[in-house]
């Protein structure tokens, strides 16, 4: 046992081996700053040998400012009685390097410090990376600010454009329509049936274009208006929309079914606009059914409510599902079903602005079902955060 213990005892050579085989810079100085010991990494970095450095001070090796700082730190460590951490800068081949330094005093039998040991780790790369990250973040924030400003500017521009469209493009249409009317009223004796018919068609088209302009504006407004989220009673909303539609066409027989207690959070006006369009679509495309059926309900998908509007009307060819939501795309002829083809584009924009999804299923001739969600489950918490920030 004794034998083995003697073998295991660590001698000065072993300790030297220990401090020489590390990438840290290790050194020992007395309280006047005179070197007592350095490790090999020190020798290598500062090009000085262990023998030569004995008795030298930092002021012999480094610029005065650096040496002053090292000495000051040594004194702090000596006084503290235990290890203290510093960040120090020392010269390197490629410019100054930053070190994370632990300094601790060596205490004599009287408990007084007689020397200070230092272990310095080069953290230049880490500092540089941190600096880069900081710079990158600053740049990123700046980019975000710039992009936000650009977006705001383009939204304003779009706003002004939309306003101009609604004013300036409608006025000439009114003139077209109005003067056609004046021709019909004042010069009808000079016009034959074809002439009258041409003027009527001019009027129909002026009206149609005015409608298209209105739809286009409504579409752009859904993209521009600020979202104001609140709790929405979709059941009540659907019932009121259906009530209005039924009042407009009291002669139609439509079997209506609205699931009770449909609730979600969203922008009241935009969601109403979307529901209005979806339900009006169902109403329109069931116009040819002897017994039309419109069902509004919900189901759960990934523990999130998915709402749907189902009808037993004309439906659409599933091959063209991707075209359904494009503005001014119509899957039915104007003769069968009137409309500008903007309704579903509006619905899609409303849903997307809420962070939700929309899709549709159909068997032509048997009806269509439109499904939508108002927010994706993952984005829900983010959106709440965003709302809080406002």
């Amino acid at each position, binding site marked *: 046992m004794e034998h083995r213990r003697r073998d295991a005892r660590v001698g000065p050579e072993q300790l030297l081996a220990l401090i020489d085989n590390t990438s840290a810079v290790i050194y020992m100085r007395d309280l006047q700053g005179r070197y007592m010991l350095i490790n090999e990494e020190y020798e290598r970095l500062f090009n000085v040998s262990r023998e030569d450095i004995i008795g030298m001070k930092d002021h012999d090796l480094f610029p005065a400012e650096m040496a002053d700082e090292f000495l000051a730190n040594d004194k702090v460590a000596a006084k503290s009685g235990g290890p203290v951490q510093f960040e120090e800068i020392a010269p390197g081949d490629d410019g100054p390097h930053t070190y994370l330094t632990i300094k601790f005093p060596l205490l004599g039998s009287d408990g007084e410090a007689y020397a200070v040991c230092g272990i310095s780790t080069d953290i230049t790369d880490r500092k540089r990376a941190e600096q880069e990250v900081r710079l990158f973040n600053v740049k990123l924030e700046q980019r975000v600010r710039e992009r936000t400003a650009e977006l705001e500017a383009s939204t304003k521009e779009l706003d002004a454009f939309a306003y101009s469209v609604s004013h300036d493009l*409608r*006025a000439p249409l009114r003139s077209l329509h109005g003067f056609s*009317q004046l021709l019909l009223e004042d010069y009808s004796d000079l016009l034959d049936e074809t002439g009258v018919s041409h003027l009527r068609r001019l*009027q129909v088209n002026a*009206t149609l274009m005015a409608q298209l302009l209105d739809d286009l504006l409504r579409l752009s407004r859904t993209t521009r208006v600020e979202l104001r989220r609140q709790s929405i009673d979709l059941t009540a909303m659907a019932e009121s929309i259906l009530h209005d539609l039924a009042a407009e066409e009291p002669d139609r027989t439509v079997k209506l079914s609205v699931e009770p207690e449909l609730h979600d959070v969203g922008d009241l006006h935009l969601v109403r606009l979307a529901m209005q369009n979806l339900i009006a679509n169902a109403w329109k495309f069931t116009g040819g059914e002897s017994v039309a059926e419109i069902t509004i309900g919900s189901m759960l998908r990934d523990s999130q409510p998915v709402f749907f509007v189902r009808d037993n009307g004309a439906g659409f060819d599933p091959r063209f599902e991707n075209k359904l939501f494009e503005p001014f795309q119509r899957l039915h002829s104007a003769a069968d079903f009137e409309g500008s083809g903007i309704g579903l584009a509006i619905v899609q924009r409303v849903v997307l602005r809420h962070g939700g999804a929309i899709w549709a299923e159909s068997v032509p001739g048997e009806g269509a079902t439109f499904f939508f969600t108002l927010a994706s489950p993952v984005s829900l918490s983010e959106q709440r955060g965003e709302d809080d920030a406002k």
Partner: protein
Amino acid sequence: MMLNDQILLIEDNPDDVTFTQRAFRKNNFGNKIVVANDGAMAMKLLLPPAGIVALRPSIVLLDINLPQMSGLDVLRRLRSEEATKLIPVIMLTTSNDDRDVRASYECGANGFVRKPVAFDDFLCAVKSLGLYWLEVNEQVRPQERRSG
């Protein structure tokens, strides 16, 4: 014809002037329509310098988009003057922008008509407007108000 049987139309678009005149005629409103092509001219008629008789129309039809002095500017001015603040003013606009509607009422407009593209609709709008403001609605004159 009484002075207040007149209607003042403040409108810079000559086509719209034609249609408005026609619409009033077709609806058999016998009122004389005085036209001002811009805000400055309207001001001259409604708030003339001393010594000149001011126009006191039954209603003012005011286009919101006028060159230079806008329709809203005209409206604000009318509402700020004792002599004109009670004249009913109906705003005419091409757009149905919410902001225009809101701004109009905030400035004290009595009504708001979006000029429809279809002439028939315009006739209807003028008809209901005329019925309400020229026949149903009794005029409140400043003198009566003061005495009452």
